[in-house]
C-alpha cells in the first residue's frame, strides 16, 4: 500500500515533482513579497496602502545566507522521521529577485561541511515525516551541483 503524499502545511508550496516552488504573495501596488502567505490581504509595507496580495511562485534558486544543523532531537511538535533522530542541516536562503531570506531544512545527506555562505541552492520537496497513512511533505534546500559547497 502506498501512502498518500500530503503537504505538512497547506498552501505554502507546490509539489509538482518537476518544478516545486514556494508560494508567496506579491503586493499588486508596491511589488513587495510576503512569505509565508497570509490569510489577510493588506500589504505589510507601511509605505503602501495596497490591499491586494496576489499568489506567486517564488524563485526556486537562491544563495545561502547562513546555515546550521540540529544535532539533538528537537522537541514536539517536531516529529522524528524514522526510528531515531539523525542530525539534519538547516539553511536560511536569500532569494535575490524577491529580496527575501527563507529558512528550510537541507536535504538529508548534506552536512554543514558541505555548505557555505553564498553557496547556490535550489528548492526541492521532500518527506518531513510519515505516519501509517500519509507521507507529510515539506520544502527543503538542496545544494546545486557544481555550486559553492565543498
Amino acid at each position, binding site marked *: 500500500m502506498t501512502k498518500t503524499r500530503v503537504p505538512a502545511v497547506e498552501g505554502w508550496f507546490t509539489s509538482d515533482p518537476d518544478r516545486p516552488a514556494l508560494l508567496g504573495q506579491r503586493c499588486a501596488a508596491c511589488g513587495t513579497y510576503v*512569505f*509565508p502567505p497570509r490569510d489577510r490581504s493588506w500589504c505589510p509595507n507601511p509605505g503602501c496602502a495596497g490591499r491586494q496580495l496576489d499568489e506567486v511562485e517564488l524563485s526556486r534558486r537562491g544563495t545561502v*545566507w547562513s*546555515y*546550521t*544543523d540540529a544535532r539533538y532531537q528537537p522537541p514536539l*511538535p517536531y516529529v522524528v522521521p524514522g526510528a531515531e533522530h539523525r542530525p539534519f542541516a538547516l539553511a*536560511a536562503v536569500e532569494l535575490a529577485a524577491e529580496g527575501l*531570506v527563507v*529558512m528550510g531544512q537541507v536535504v538529508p545527506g548534506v552536512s554543514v561541511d558541505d555548505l557555505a555562505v553564498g553557496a547556490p541552492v535550489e528548492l526541492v520537496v521532500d518527506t518531513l515525516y510519515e505516519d501509517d497513512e500519509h507521507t507529510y511533505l515539506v520544502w527543503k534546500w538542496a545544494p546545486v551541483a557544481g555550486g559553492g559547497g565543498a
Partner: protein
Amino acid sequence: MRGRDDVVVLGVGMHPWGKWGRNFVEYGVAAATDALGDAGLDWGDVQFVSGADTMRNGYPGYVAGATFAQALGWTGVPVASSYAACASGATAMEVARTRILAGLCDVALVVGADTTPKGFLAPTSGERPDDPDWLRFRLLGATNPTYFALYARRRMDLYGATDADFARVKVKNARHGLNNANARYRKEVTESEVLASPMVADPLRLLEICATSDGGAAVVLASAAFARRHTTEPVRVAAISTATPTYPNAVIEMPNFATDSWAAAAPPERPFKASIAAAAYDEAGIGPEDLSLAEVYDLSAALELDWYEDIGLCKPGEAERLLNDGDTTIGGRVPVNPSGGLSCFGEAVPAQAIAQVCEVTWQLRGRATGRQVEGARVGITANQGLFGHGSSVLLAR
C-alpha cells in the same frame, strides 16, 4: 532631553537563579521584598505594580502584576502586566517609568519571575498551525539555538570569527560571574573545555548556549523628588527603549520562517538590532563612548559579539578584536556582562531584563562585590525578544 524630572532606581533585588522547581510567585515576592528593603520602603509605600508576565505558569503568570500584588497583600494599588518575550522586564519597567513621569505616582515596583521547564524551550502542547512559534518546530525542527547558530555561522563566514573566539566569550563570562551570589553557574571554564563540549547547533556548543533557569528580579522606581528624601546614591534612568523593527527587516528573526522583503523598500540604514540601543542613546543624549559597562543578552556566546557592534562599542566585524584585546573584560575599557551574563545565569525570561538593570545599578553604586567595574558612571542593558521586541535601559549616576 525633554527637561522633565528624572526617574530613579531606588532599590533592586533578586532571588538567586537556579533550577529550584518552586512556584514562580515565591521568587518574585522574594525579589520584591529584597528590592523594597534595598530602597528602605515598605510594601505599603508602593503606588503602582508593574509585572512582567510568564506564559508558562498558567493564569497567575499571565497576570503577573496582580499576582505579585495579591501575594504581597492586596492594598488597592493599580497594576499592569506586560509581555514582550525576552524584553518583558524592560517593557514592565517602561510602563512604570512612564507612570512616574506622568505624575500619576511617585513609587512603582517592577517584578518579573519565572519557573522554567528543563531542556529546550518548546511550545506548549496542542495543534496550533496558526502560530509561527509552533510551526517552526513542526515544519523545520528549528529550536532557539538554530537561530543563534545562523548568526554565529555568518560571523565566521563574513568576519572570520572562530570557534575559539566564541569559546573565549564563555571563558570571560564564567570568570565574571564567579563571585556573583545570584548566578546559577559559578565555575571557571577553560577554552578547551568549552571547545570539548558537545555541538548543539553548529557552530554553537553546549557551553556556549544559555540554559533556562528559575529566578526573580525586582526594581523599585521613584520620582527624583521622592528619591531625594530616601537616598544619597540615586541611579538615574536616563532612557528606556522598547523599539520594534522598521520594514523591511532583512534579518531572519526567531520564530519566523522568512524575512520581510526588500523588493519594494530598502532596508533601514540601521538594522533592527542596532536600532534598539540607538533609541536609548537618542533619548538620553548619551553615546556609546560614555559607557562604563554593558549588560547584553548573550543567549549564545557568539551573540554577545553581535551586541558589541549593535550597542556601538565597535564597528561591524570588529567585535572579536575587542574581545581578544580584553576591552570587554572587567578591568578593560568597557566590560560587558560583568554579572556573568546569561552564560552564568541561564534565562528566566520575565526576570532577565530586570536582572540586567539590577546589575548595572549595583555597578553604578560601586557595590558589585567581586566583579566591580571601577568608577562606573554609565551603563546600558540590551536585549531582544521574539516578535520584534527590542529593549534597552540606560542608567547613569
